[in-house]
């Protein structure tokens, strides 16, 4: 700490010797006390105090002390505290000037008794209990968020919600247009896989033409919406959580609140609108590309023409199937917006917390998508849609 430059010379061995003289303990410190050379630690010095027994003063002699750094100060600090606790006087005149000043500096701020934390290790039951309580709290938080979003949507309808039109356009572009390449690829391949599996099975019964029905119904009613939903959960849901989480850490959200602008209206609403508008559009697009993928497989593997394929597909899906698919897409869009924005706004205060918020946003989106997919399928079946 004090000495600089390249220390080419080997270090002299660090030593400390105790001498008691009329009730005064003098510690003679010599050699080089450098971290690199492992000098005597705090235990060695504290042991000397204990061995010395009854003394009324502790002093130092550092005439033969060479180079030193924090390796000297750490044990001296421990010694200083022990000596003061025992009510023995400490005479630091013998220490080098720099060491004396640093020790005094470290001692100026006393440790407040309520500061230090005890690390607690809970047993398994306590941990399960805490996890349950946290899950319940998260559920309540989600419900509260949905409620607030409904109010916010109400303000949107009555035209009292404040947000930037520019933001909305940006989010429409980011969630919609920018997602086209990945949606194209996934939807096309899903159609191809559907058709391939269908061809393999249906050909055995000479019912190859029904591949068109399989692909059309599968894509339009279920897969287009689900695949698009999962893609947008990973793309936009995660992005929203990270954006809002970072804004929370930077106190940008508090800044909006103090201005009387609702973060719900200003930040969540444009994102939710973008997702709710773009999910159905992307789903229609995905369904069409899925049909194209199916057509490519059917035409190459079966002895049918494009016209036959299209006619067959057209007869398989009615308007109700299209609406069934679009409604699902809309619901998934809401789910993704809720998960992404809620996790972002509930983000903690560290860089790690932003990562966790992003992860939870995606996991929660996918979970909610699957749950609502099942629920809607049951409802459709009951009502015969």
């Amino acid at each position, binding site marked *: *700490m*004090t*000495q*600089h*430059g390249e220390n080419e010379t080997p270090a002299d061995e660090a030593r400390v010797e105790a001498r008691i003289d009329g009730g005064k303990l003098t510690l003679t410190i010599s050699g080089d006390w450098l*971290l*690199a050379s492992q000098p005597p*630690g*705090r235990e060695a010095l504290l042991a000397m105090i204990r061995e010395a027994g009854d003394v009324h003063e502790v002093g130092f002699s550092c005439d033969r002390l060479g180079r030193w*750094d*924090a390796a000297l*100060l*750490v044990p001296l*600090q421990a010694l200083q505290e022990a000596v003061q606790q025992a009510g023995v006087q400490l005479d630091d005149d013998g220490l080098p*000037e*720099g*060491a004396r*000043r*640093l020790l005094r*500096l*470290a*001692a*100026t*701020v*006393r*440790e*407040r008794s309520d*500061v*230090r*934390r005890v*690390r607690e290790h809970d047993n398994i039951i306590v941990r399960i209990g805490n996890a349950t309580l946290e899950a319940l709290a998260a559920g309540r938080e989600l419900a509260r968020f949905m409620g607030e979003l409904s109010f916010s949507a109400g303000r949107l309808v009555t035209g009292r919600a404040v947000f930037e039109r520019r933001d909305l356009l940006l989010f429409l572009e980011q969630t919609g247009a920018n997602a086209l390449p990945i949606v194209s690829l996934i939807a096309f391949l899903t159609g191809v896989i559907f058709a391939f599996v269908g061809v393999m099975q249906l050909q055995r019964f000479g019912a190859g033409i029904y591949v068109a029905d399989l692909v059309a119904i599968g894509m339009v009613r279920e897969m287009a919406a689900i695949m698009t939903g999962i893609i947008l959960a990973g793309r936009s849901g995660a992005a929203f959580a990270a954006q809002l989480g970072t804004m929370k*850490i930077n106190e940008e959200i508090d800044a909006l609140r103090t201005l009387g602008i609702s973060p719900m209206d200003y930040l969540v609403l444009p994102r939710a609108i973008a997702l709710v508008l773009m999910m159905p559009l992307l789903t229609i697009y995905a369904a069409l590309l899925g049909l194209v993928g199916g057509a490519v497989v059917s035409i190459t593997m079966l002895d049918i023409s494009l016209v036959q394929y299209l006619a067959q597909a057209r007869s398989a899906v009615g308007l109700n199937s299209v609406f069934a698919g679009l409604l699902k897409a809309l619901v998934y869009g809401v789910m993704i917006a809720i998960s992404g924005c809620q996790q972002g706004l509930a983000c*903690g*205060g*560290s*860089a*790690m*917390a932003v990562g966790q918020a992003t992860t939870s946003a995606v996991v929660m989106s996918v979970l909610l998508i699957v749950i609502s997919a099942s629920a809607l399928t049951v409802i459709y079946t009951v009502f015969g849609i």
Partner: protein
Amino acid sequence: MNDEGTAHIEVRDLALAYGDRVVQEGLNFSIARGEVFIIMGGSGCGKSSLMKAMTGLLRPSAGDVWYEGQPYWAGDEQQRQEIRQRCGVLFQSGALWSSLTLAENVALPMRHRTRLSEAQIEELCAWRLALVGLRGFEDYYPNELSGGMRKRAGLARAMALDPEILYFDEPSAGLDPVSARLLDDLILELSASLGTTIVVVTHDLASIFAIAGRALYLDAGSRTQLALGEPAALREHCEHAAVRAFLSREATVPADAGETG
């Protein structure tokens, strides 16, 4: 151990630019071992960029920074690494790693750059946090602390490797006058007892007069250094009206410091 004649840090013909936009050029000064040196100037004059060039974060467009006769930017990566290890930097808002506790923040440089044992590292963390007045806060996370405490924790981390040179970026920014004053005192105390060379970037006049040995004034208009010397002397006798105005907090824009683009 080293001859006092060579400067600890020497900046020669340094120019800083972002793309085509020149921020500062023709910078020449040297800093002696153990000196408390201030880089001052108005907002946007390039003082933080200068510090970045000195700490290895921004490659200058011309010139070099010499550490004990060794050029930083002209050296290879290993030499640069060696020089960087001798410097500690306190960033403006502390720049503590938010997902680590204070003790872990201070321990990280020691874990990766020294061969100390875990027990030694733990003791050293406690010692360094005690030095900056944060005894007992080892297990706290940065977002649980006030701005002043975060800054002091950042200082403990900057000192983790026993640097010969400590850089401070706007140490008093965001602190109340009392906390700023305490931090200034701490800087002076560390410089006096450790012999550390200290370079401070600031526009805070109270700090400048309290801690500076010498101060360098960077001018935004002429994009170069205007004056170098003791702040009190510069305030009274500097030939440039801009420097006198800056140091005496006058609002007039002197003729020789106008925005020349």
